[in-house]
């Protein structure tokens, strides 16, 4: 069955999640990926949102992390202070999803400014909880379209630390976890032992040259790059008919 880039990103992100994971969910692709994983292979996935709702069971897809559908029927709701301290900083979040305007070769993410901080070309929303997700979740999954301007060799501003400069260890800064996977519309990347991004899987029809052309540095590839699994007909049916029937996230 024909599928879109977004649908492939949803199924690829869902594959990263394991049963019993507690996941700090983001709106959009991460939300759909969690819903799909819950339906397929991870029924005990626990979905937690930045607003403090735990075990949300929304009747419709949330439009923001503070949406009322995330509060009704949740198993718990914490204040921001409790959620960020006891849950995230306390080490109770297995997986966090992150995005941003720029991601660099060491998985550092910028969601603060494009250009100089004092005189920015573009003022972005800022960290929100992203810096603490990057610092305290046991692993993070980055989701972003692969474009050269979004994947520069070094970000303009490190909002959320990845593997830093690859010389400094995350441990030295007291940071837990680190980026584990980068899900894009062309390929899926992991990180080598030095904390540098490395392409592990190419999406169907995408070449290594396509990926290199959309990346701002000479990107590494594993020796035996595999193809990303295509979404199954059943996954596409679930996404289109049950998980996002109104096309809230998929348009």
């Amino acid at each position, binding site marked *: 069955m024909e599928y879109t880039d977004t649908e492939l990103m949803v199924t690829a992100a869902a594959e990263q999640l394991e049963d019993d994971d507690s996941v700090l969910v983001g709106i959009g692709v991460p939300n759909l990926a969690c819903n799909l994983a819950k339906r397929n292979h991870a029924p005990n996935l626990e979905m937690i949102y930045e*607003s403090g*709702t735990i075990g949300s069971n929304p009747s419709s897809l949330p439009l923001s992390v503070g949406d009322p559908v995330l*509060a009704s029927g949740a198993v718990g709701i914490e*204040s921001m202070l409790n959620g960020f301290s006891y849950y995230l900083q306390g080490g109770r979040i297995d997986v966090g999803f992150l995005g941003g305007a720029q991601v660099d070769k060491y998985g550092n993410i910028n969601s603060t400014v494009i250009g100089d901080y004092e005189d920015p070309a573009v*003022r972005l929303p800022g960290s*929100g909880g992203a810096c603490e997700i990057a610092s305290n979740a046991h692993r993070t999954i980055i989701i972003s379209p692969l474009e050269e301007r979004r994947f520069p060799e070094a970000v303009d*501003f*490190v*909002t959320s630390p990845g593997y830093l400069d690859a010389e400094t260890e995350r441990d030295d800064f007291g940071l837990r976890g680190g980026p584990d996977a980068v899900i894009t519309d062309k390929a899926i990347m992991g990180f080598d032992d030095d904390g540098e991004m490395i392409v592990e899987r190419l999406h169907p029809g995408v070449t290594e040259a396509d990926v290199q052309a959309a990346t701002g540095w000479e990107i590494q590839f594993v020796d035996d790059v595999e193809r990303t699994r295509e979404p199954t007909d059943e996954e596409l049916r679930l996404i289109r008919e049950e998980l996002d029937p109104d096309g809230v996230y998929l348009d």
Partner: protein
Amino acid sequence: MASAISDAVDDGDSLYLAGFTHLIPFAAGHEIIRAGYGDLELIRATPDLVYDQLIAAGCVSKVTFSWAGNPGIGSLRAFRRAVEDGVPNPIETEEYTHYGMVAALHAGAADLPFMPVRTFAGSDLVDQNDAIRTVSSPYGDDEIPVVPPIEPDVAIVSAQRSDEDGNAHLWGIPGEQKEAALAADTVICCVEELCSTETIRSDPNRTLFTADAVDYVVEVPYGAHPSYAQGYYDRDNAAYLEWEEVSKDHEDTRAWLDEWVYGVDDRREYVEKLGAERLLDLEVDSRYATAVDMGDY
């Protein structure tokens, strides 16, 4: 509302209009715009449309924040115009992360000199905000980032209901409402409806803060529109989408303020202007919590 704002707020004050998407005190923000305040420092983890409106109206000289955006939609455009182009006036920014902000409010509320946090290390935010520093743990060799107390002059906090003294009940997403109120010198509590103290006493676990924290109580139905009040009305998503269009241009933004803020006397007129049909669209079905037995001792 007008008398509470005029008593509590002075030019140059630092204000915290609290709320994480839920129960944003829009009615109070609009009253501040109408009253023509200037040189305000706005503080909040998640500045949203009401802060964009205050900035566009020229009331603001500084914003202290951790995420400035239109939730689920995109940028906060008046905020960006002020930061990028100095329109209508340049504003200073002081930037934290979500946890950094609420930890700083906690320090303010609990009268602590600082609060240690496991965030900021490895982030360039440390270089941009002198208030974020590092200390050695007195119990070991570890270094840990710390944030200073944030103590706003005035916090404006919404809840679903309170008694006339300000003992307040909140349910749904509590955000940083409690910490902001307890950290501030003066607190205005805006509620959808007043209730009896007996109602508050029947369910004390639902109390957000007690009257000790509160200086002014304002009953203002639909005071959080276009945000929502859990169980009372839904978020008016069309208004957030409309703001994305209106706020692209400063003149359009001013025209919107002329119509919806300067053009009405108070929240009652605003609600009348919204009209019954729009409010009915925001109605939610009831879904009651099971009653708990507190025991009669």
